């Protein structure tokens, strides 16, 4: 039986598969379909200091083998997350490691959310969202500039002992300097990719389908871009990488691990197939055997990234 455990800062995972931020709420909905204890971990919807209403609707559109979303960080705010969502998870899935995706507009509010999360013992790591393309001040500015990204990472690390995984944007000319900057600034790991910016038009109305005009592209369509960015970032840093972007099968997950990821988040695939995560988890050992993988350590990363 191949070994599917992975060990990352703050996260001892029985398998590398976790739902991606924003695609799984805070877990309650998908718990109607299966026991979330099967998951390696769970990444929550973005959490901001104050509740946020997000963007007007329509907020989603379909694209070939993918989708656009412009949710705009709607969330109930960190107080509610601490009072309701995290305790629900702790009560029903006490062993499940939770990663809270933290978003904001300034260094201060990001840091305030990070500091507040100390109160929740089931939170094992923070994913710092510096790459939301869907709100005017959704952190995307942090995600496209190495210095701002580093400052934010440093400020957040200063207020929490939790490991911080910085979630990078694919919408940049060169992702490597940003990865290097947050690495130097104290990131415990990296998460990539967030969504690519895209849009669609309705031919009858000749208007953009999304009320926000642009949205974030995700799903199988973006997988080759995610693989490239993960491999490029792996080639400049040893930090653990939570890889994501178009994973729907165990083979997709393995391909991303070979590219340089250490764990895998599954986003939009949940919408198409509510059992996406448990299916991948069930298939993973079989596919590892098929492709002669014994474990999921750094050994499996493509040597070209080393």
């Amino acid at each position: 039986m191949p070994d599917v455990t992975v060990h990352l800062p703050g996260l001892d995972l029985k398998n590398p598969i976790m739902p991606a931020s924003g695609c799984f709420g805070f877990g309650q909905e998908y718990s109607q379909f299966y026991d979330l204890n099967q998951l390696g971990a769970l990444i929550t919807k973005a959490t901001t200091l104050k509740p946020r209403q997000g963007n007007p609707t329509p907020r989603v559109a379909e694209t070939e083998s993918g989708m656009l979303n412009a949710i705009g960080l709607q969330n109930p705010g960190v107080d509610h997350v601490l009072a309701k969502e995290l305790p629900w998870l702790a009560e029903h899935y006490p062993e499940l490691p939770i990663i809270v995706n933290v978003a904001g507009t300034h260094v201060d509010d990001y840091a305030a959310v990070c500091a507040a999360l100390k109160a929740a013992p089931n939170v094992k790591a923070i994913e710092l969202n510096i790459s939301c393309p869907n709100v005017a001040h959704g952190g995307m500015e942090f995600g496209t500039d190495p210095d701002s990204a580093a400052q934010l990472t440093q400020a957040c690390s200063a207020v929490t002992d939790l490991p911080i995984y910085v979630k990078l944007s694919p919408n940049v000319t060169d992702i490597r300097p940003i990865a290097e900057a947050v690495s130097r600034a104290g990131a415990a790991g990296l998460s990539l990719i967030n969504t690519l910016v895209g849009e669609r038009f309705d031919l009858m109305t000749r208007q953009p389908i999304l009320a926000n005009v642009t949205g974030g592209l995700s799903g199988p369509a973006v997988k080759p871009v995610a693989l490239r960015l993960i491999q490029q970032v792996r080639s400049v840093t040893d930090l653990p990488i939570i890889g994501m972007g178009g994973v729907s099968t165990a083979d997709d997950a393995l391909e991303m691990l070979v590219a340089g990821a250490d764990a895998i988040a599954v986003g939009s695939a949940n919408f198409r197939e509510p059992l996406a995560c448990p299916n991948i988890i069930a298939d993973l050992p079989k596919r590892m055997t098929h492709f002669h993988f014994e474990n999921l350590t750094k050994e499996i990363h493509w040597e070209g990234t080393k």
Partner: protein
Amino acid sequence: MPQQQLLPIVAQHQVAPEIYEMILTAPDLVQTAQPGQFIDVLVPDHPEHFLRRPFAIATCDAKQGQISFTYRVKGPGTEAMVACQVGTSLDVLGPLGHGFPIADVTPGTPVLLVGGGTGIPPLLGLAQRLQQQGAQVTTVLGYRSQAESFYQDRFAKTGEVCIASDDGTLGFHGHVGLLMAAQLTERHFERAFACGPKGLLMAVKNRYQAQMPTYLSLESRMACGIGACYACVTPTTDHELKKICSDGPVFPAQEVVL
């Protein structure tokens, strides 16, 4: 509790230009599904159509263990569904959302149903259930034209039916809002249910929400269909956002801003 199931297609036929009815074997769904709930359907053989498509459950036949839904061919997904063969199966999530609240409708209660276009099919199941409960059902149906009309005969078996068409080729000439203003102002109802385009929902909301319990079924582009992604929200009168997929799709008219 929603389930994911592979439901065999028993029949599919065209009921009007561009409008098809699909009947599925769904012995579990018929046990629990309520009028106004919906299913989320994976388009078969087209993995590139990434998202599921939500459709309201039209009718539930508990004896046969079958549900039906009725859809308009709009884009590539519904286009592909027309080609689905009897005997193959659809991957379906359901029943999803909350249906029309009718448990407390007592025999003899006069109720009004207002539907337009592809908002009509779910009202058929609702009308049938209300009739079974002994309610006195009046349905107002709005079509584009006679050529594009469907299901009048089936509604006729559930009670009184008033029909409007945009071009006047069938029944009242004009939209259902005008029909209600012209023909129903003197009539007494104790509950109103509506499903259809925004203008229709507005007309029903404005006319009835202050007088009687009024329920509207809303639509929105969805991703997860179960409340996890925040794609489908609608603003409420108390400045909150509700999820159409899991808090709705049926809402009390007074609760939502259209």
